[in-house]
């Protein structure tokens, strides 16, 4: 068990190393591109250029440059954005992270609850009008672009119907930290989180329905019925148990991807100062240090999530823990 953990940890470090080399290579070692000019930003003075060149070691060989960059990112954490006139990048990302995390936590709560309910009901009532209705709605949710949906929500709740009794509670766009006001925090995030979760509800409900129906054909389910278990027990206790493996792995990947900045569009539309919006800003101004930091931050989350999923997998299916599947 300890050996497996160590191996897993080594694997994670290796993956992160690979990603950092890749990102570094794309932005800094592309032939013909002068990273100094990019880091310094557009229209920088020659003095600034010279300062950047020596600070990042761009007059030194590539491995040194890479090491310097990683050192600035992870050890001294003083990587600064030149676009933003010397603001350190790492604290910026750290300040944005709780916003994104809050948004994604709320969204995932919605999408898990709703997709479980819809997926199970659709599977139980398969091919009925209820099932078709839900799957139709799900497809609709799946195909609505999140930025469009967000704008529509804003239009309705912020301006058009803001003064009706229905939406008067909706706060202005922006984020309220939990420490400041838990209620304000929840109110500020409710609509963005719902908007973000719509597509996931559609997708997850479909996946769960398909997996559940496949599981119901298994011998083990026949055994459960032969034991005298009622339908609720057969579906929820036995069926779900067999079918939520792919649901869980899908969830882990999506969750990590969103926390890593994948909720960019939602954050921009609802003016939430999260990691996604930070990445968006960095890309807009070609702020290379900021991009480097956000990409590495995202990579850490995805790699971590992968490890967590594998752990959860082993808990859900003991055959995986022993490195064998089936017979």
């Amino acid at each position, binding site marked *: 068990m300890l050996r497996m953990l160590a191996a897993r940890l080594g694997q994670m470090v290796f993956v992160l190393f690979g990603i950092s080399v890749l990102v570094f290579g794309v932005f800094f070692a592309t032939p013909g591109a002068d990273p100094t000019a990019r880091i310094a930003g557009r229209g920088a003075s020659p003095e600034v250029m010279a300062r950047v060149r020596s600070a990042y070691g761009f007059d030194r060989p590539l491995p040194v440059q890479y090491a310097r960059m990683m050192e600035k990112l992870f050890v001294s954490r003083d990587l600064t954005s030149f676009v933003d006139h010397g603001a350190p990048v790492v604290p910026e990302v750290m300040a944005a992270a709780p916003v994104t995390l809050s948004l994604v936590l709320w969204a995932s709560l919605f999408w898990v609850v709703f997709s479980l309910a819809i997926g199970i009901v659709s599977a139980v009532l398969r091919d009925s009008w209820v099932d078709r209705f839900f799957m139709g709605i799900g497809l609709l949710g799946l195909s609505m672009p999140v930025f469009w949906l967000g704008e529509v929500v804003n239009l309705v709740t912020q301006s058009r119907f803001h003064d009706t009794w229905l939406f008067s509670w909706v706060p202005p766009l922006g984020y309220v930290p939990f420490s400041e006001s838990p209620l304000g925090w929840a109110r500020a995030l409710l609509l963005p989180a719902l908007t973000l979760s719509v597509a996931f509800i559609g997708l997850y409900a479909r996946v769960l329905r398909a997996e559940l129906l496949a599981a119901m054909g298994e*011998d083990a389910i026949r055994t459960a019925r032969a034991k005298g278990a009622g339908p609720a027990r057969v579906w929820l206790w036995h069926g779900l148990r067999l079918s939520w493996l792919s649901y869980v792995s899908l969830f882990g990947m999506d969750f990590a991807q969103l926390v890593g900045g994948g909720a960019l569009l939602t954050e921009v539309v609802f003016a939430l100062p999260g990691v996604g919006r930070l990445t968006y800003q960095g890309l807009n101004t070609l702020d290379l240090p900021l991009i480097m930091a956000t990409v590495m931050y995202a990579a850490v989350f995805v790699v971590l999530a992968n490890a967590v999923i594998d752990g959860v997998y082993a808990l859900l299916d*003991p055959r995986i823990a022993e490195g064998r599947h089936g017979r």
Partner: protein
Amino acid sequence: MDAETLLSIEDLRLALPDGRVLLDGVSLSLARGEALGVVGESGSGKSLTAMTVMGLLPDVRSSGAVRFRARDLLMQDARAWRRLRGKEIAMIFQDPMTAFLPVRRVGAQIDEQIRLHEKLSRREARARTVRLLGEMGVPDPAAAAERFPHQLSGGLRQRAMIAMALSCAPALLIADEPTTALDVTVQAQILVLLTRLRETGAGLMLITHDMGVVAQACTHVAVLYAGVVVERGPVRAVLDAPLHPYTRALLAAMPPLDGPRPAHLPAIAGQPPAPDARPPGCVFAPRCPQVRPDCAIRPPVVRMGEQEVVCVLYAS
């Protein structure tokens, strides 16, 4: 039907909603302490018969009667079925690997069945589980209960399956090819176990394709072909003097384990008919060496001593 009769199936017919006929006249009966072997090839309807007795076939139209302890099972509602399944009639399946939920411990799955039917604490249920596993010859039953299905060998898994089936002391046990997935030496162990079970007074319905298994573990046999019971009676009588041409052909087609080796096995030509292409008369007529013109009409059930046979050869 006398008091000792546990299960009697009378002229059971099953059809799919699209009209394809799955069972076309199955009559069986089983008394307490008896073991009935239901023999047939794949597609003969032997498993369907078992599933009907368990009420596990959702989308079929059925006619005829399935009587269990004087109750007509086909008439009862879902709640009554649930009380019956696992408690009064229990079932074991061919592949104990897939029949158990792979992600839960074996003991927990047996406990579940006990607690579904009896108001027992977890601890009491587990005590019974361990006792049953021990009785089924599982070494170190308390530890085995804590294993996952894939951590047990095939033979131990099937023993655990039988323990689960017996956990609520059912009056009838249905075993669907319980030894087909096992090695011969393990099959022999399981057959011994099933034979011992009869001594408790329960009835056993053993679904199999293997006449040898029937000979070993059953008191009575019913031979199914293409959804029809073509012959039934006590095992000894049927094996010693098979009446139906199909039963005879089936026994002759088995390669012998001793005596002279035939240059050619007397195989039955052709294939069993598909459910949508069954002949209207005797279902075996197209492959029968003794076919006659009057086989075009479904023959009646004829009683010959202890045996019953569905064949024109015996119709007077």
